[in-house]
């Protein structure tokens, strides 16, 4: 490779072509940013977003043109791809940053210990104060119960499909798992409402909500676990079986631990998904402003439902609460996600990569 850093003096070696110096992209980036600001000021564009777009466009075009002149067509295309990839990445960061910024800025107004440890109680929607304790507790309990139902069934089903399933039953189960991923969440809620509450005559409860949520959770668990189990090399199974270990112990002691990282990630993502569900909770948990620590009896609340209702109440006090609750919910899911990734990395099967 040539180590030339000056454009004007091409390397004498015939093997290396002309190269742009390593600082060239930076200079082009700064240059296009400055030009974009100038254009923006002159043309009187108010939106900073537009300035950014112009800068990105200038950067892509400029790096292509310069590279094409100095380094030739092939290198220029490479530069073009690189700058496009960078621009796409930065483009994706904008919405995330904006989303998080909005939530934090609007949510931190009333977010404090008082907010976390008090329910709404008898406070009206238009009054200042109140908190999310009842909703947080409801979400935690319902999600935990839903996971208790869905994770074992999902795991075992996936094990059946990958390790045992050959016949018709496996095919039918696979088909229905596919169908199940397409359930609109409100339909799961209606189903539990009809069977559990209207036909069987049980009361509204966190448990009923957990059942509806578990219906939404199961297909995600099955599919992700299935993929992870398929990644386990057959050599491991064969070695274990060859050593005379019974198949069930092979699965429990060899297959599952090998894929536990991926499985946990899948389960956590499923949990994250159901944590944000509003419709089933509204239909079968009922919602309340008071603390109910018993998920098996009486109405409970949940965070997404709380956000939805506070937003619908439509006044500044309730908007503040809605955003603060959204902040809590995102924080909760973020922590779960972090834990999931931690476990995944910590226990991931050691591959060659």
């Amino acid at each position, binding site marked *: 490779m040539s180590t030339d850093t000056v454009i004007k003096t091409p390397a004498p070696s015939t093997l290396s072509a002309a190269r742009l110096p390593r600082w060239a992209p930076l200079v082009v980036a700064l240059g296009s940013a400055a030009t974009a600001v100038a254009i923006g000021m002159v043309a009187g564009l108010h939106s900073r*977003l537009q300035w950014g777009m112009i800068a990105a466009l200038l950067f892509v075009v400029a790096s292509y043109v310069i590279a094409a002149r100095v380094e030739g067509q*092939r*290198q220029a295309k*490479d530069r*073009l*791809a*690189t700058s496009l*990839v960078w621009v*796409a*990445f930065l483009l*994706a960061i904008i*919405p995330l940053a904006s*989303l998080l910024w*909005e939530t934090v800025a609007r949510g931190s107004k009333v977010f404090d210990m008082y907010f976390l440890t008090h329910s709404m109680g008898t406070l009206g929607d238009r009054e200042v104060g109140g908190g999310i304790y009842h909703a947080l507790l409801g979400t935690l309990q319902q999600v935990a119960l839903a996971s208790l139902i869905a994770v074992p*069934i999902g795991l*075992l089903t996936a094990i*059946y499909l*990958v390790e*045992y399933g050959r*016949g018709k*039953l*496996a095919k039918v*189960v696979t088909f*229905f*798992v*596919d*169908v*199940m991923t*397409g359930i*609109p969440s*409100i*339909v*799961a809620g*209606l*189903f539990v409402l009809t069977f559990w509450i209207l036909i069987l005559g049980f009361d509204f409860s966190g448990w009923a909500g957990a059942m509806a949520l578990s*219906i939404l959770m*199961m297909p995600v668990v*099955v599919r992700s676990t299935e993929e992870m189990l398929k990644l386990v090399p*057959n050599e491991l*199974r*064969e*070695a274990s*079986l*060859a050593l*005379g270990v*019974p*198949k*069930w*112990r092979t699965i429990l002691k060899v297959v599952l631990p090998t894929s536990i990282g991926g499985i946990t990630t899948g389960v956590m*993502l499923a949990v*994250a998904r159901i944590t944000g569900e*509003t419709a089933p909770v509204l239909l079968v948990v009922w919602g309340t402003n008071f603390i109910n620590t018993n998920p098996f009896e009486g109405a409970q609340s949940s965070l*997404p439902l709380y956000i*939805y209702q506070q*937003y619908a109440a439509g006044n500044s006090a309730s908007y503040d609460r809605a955003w603060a609750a*959204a902040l809590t919910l*995102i924080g909760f899911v*973020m922590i779960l*996600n972090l834990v999931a*990734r931690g476990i995944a990395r910590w226990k991931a099967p050691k591959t060659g990569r």
Partner: protein
Amino acid sequence: MDISTTKAPPPTEPADARPPADDRRKSNSATRPGDRVFLGLSRGSGIVLLTIMGAIAAFLTYRTVLALSDNSGNFFTTFEWDTAATPPKFGIPVLVFGTVVSSIIALVIAVPIAVAIALFISHYAPRKLSGPIAYVIDLLAAVPSIVYGLWGALVVAPHLVGLYSWLDDYLGWTGIFEYSGGAPRSLMTVGILLAIMILPIITNVSREVFLQSPKMHEEAALALGATRWEVIRMSVLPFGRSGVISASMLGLGRALGETIAVATVLSPSFLINASLLDPGGGTFAQNIASKFNEADEFGRDALIASGLVLFVITLLVNGAARLIIARRKEYSGANA
């Protein structure tokens, strides 16, 4: 599935005489009590899951039949949703249109960006950065859809006025990009929001696929003097193409069924508007959310019937994704 009898069992220490592994694998009838219990448990779970699904499917079909038998309009051609009228009249063409159009917009925007980000993480970003960046993208997947909805309505929509006016100025003649200056709460806005929502799913799956692309090919290409882009174009993208397609299908599945975010951002109507920038149209999930609260028993049945259509569409998407994934396996021959 290819876990079965590809290789002869490696030589084993015959601690005691057991039947070869192969035999046990073929026969589902487990020989030991432990095996029998475990097989029973896992098969039982499969059956439980099947029962639940069967019950839901039966429930949906039953209520759909109830609704459709009283519909005085044609379910597939009526541009109206009036379940309270006597006789009730409702149909889904607007919903099919809105759902499909908004999802396609979302895909058109999200797929290129997602592929670029996936490439960025797998091939461009500095090693130390790629982990945190992947986590940041994952965060987008974890944000609940109601928060997306609020953010979309309060923050994104007002920013789009400028863009839409610009589109109208230069592309208004096409008829698709006409903008008459209302609040930007159109299918286009929904498509943009959905694109942001499905970006992480597509990115994640694509990233995994790109990371699995054969290192030998890449190194061979590099050794022949290819640039980084040429390596990606010649060895990474062909390998990952079908993976990206199935990832997009997964994303499409989510876009089709999104409820609260769409209901908060869209200004729906039961007319099909040629322009994507003016309010109009609707989606299945949004329509269910908007009509459900005031619907009587029959109205709910009608909404469930529309839910069943969404169900069928989602199933088709899933089926297509599975087919492609299966094809990819044949192509790559990977023992994944």
